[in-house]
């Protein structure tokens, strides 16, 4: 599983924030447009692209994009 590709998929869930603003250490909850719908979109994206499910709890416990990546990578 490729981190760069994961970041791209992650960034695609945002309308206003450009891909260039996303890095492994990006704290995604600090992004201005982040809301509860984005949490659902990230979970749906993971399910769609990686065919695994992450729980709301697992997402809640992750602060950075890389932390979400690790959760997903562990399950794939």
């Amino acid at each position: 599983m490729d981190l760069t590709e994961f970041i791209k998929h992650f960034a695609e869930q945002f309308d206003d924030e450009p891909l260039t603003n996303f890095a492994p250490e990006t704290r995604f909850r600090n992004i201005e447009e982040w809301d509860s719908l984005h949490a659902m979109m990230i979970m749906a994206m993971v399910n769609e692209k990686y065919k695994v499910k992450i729980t709301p709890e697992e997402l809640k416990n992750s602060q950075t994009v890389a932390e979400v990546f690790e959760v997903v990578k562990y399950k794939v």
Partner: protein
Amino acid sequence: MSENPFLLRQKIILVTGASSGIGRETAIQCSKMGAAVIITGRNPARLAQTMSQLEGTGHQMLIADLATDLNKISDLVPIVNGVVHSAGILSLSPFTHLPEDELRNVMNANFFCPVLLTQQLLKNKKMNKNGSIVFISSLAGNVIASKGNSAYCASKSAISGIVKVLALEQASRRIRVNCILPGMVKTEMMGSFLSSLTPEQLGEDEKKYPLGYGKPQDVANAAIYLLSDASMWMTGASLVLDGGFSLQ
């Protein structure tokens, strides 16, 4: 009328989705009000558990999946005085990511199955005159909406729409058709949604309900009213049951 009109004595009531949540509680409470209850559900063990909690005699259980066993149910049930459609599923997904099969599954379980079962029962004359059909719809899709809930909301507002037409069409046989719109009720089905909230969010959410979250029994009691002769003049209605949530 010497008999208490709120009781369900001499009535046979079919309850779908009776293996858990609102359906299970409705079956139990109907039996306490004197009804003979026919319960259906997919899970044999959990359905048997509901069966063991019913009071009185004359009850039956039918292990069936509404999606595949519609004809089986309408063939096997006797003529009933009431039906409570409680089988349903919840699926959360943002609309842009909602897979087509998930949308179809939700519409199937929450709309097509209960509606087609109703059609079978009516066509096969399995609904007694003066009978009552109760759909468990939802506040969601009818009064309120929430993000990620598009499939569920669509299915539940479709139910509320068709109820009005069925009520008109069946009025000549004095069969009444109503639905209940519950707000948040703590059931297993809602568990996955509730567990996605932090304890703080959960507290905040429940505060939006002046009377707090509902219990399955609150919905069961409303269903009993709609099944009983006490609601004889009520048809085509959507009964909001939400502890005051939609007031503010």
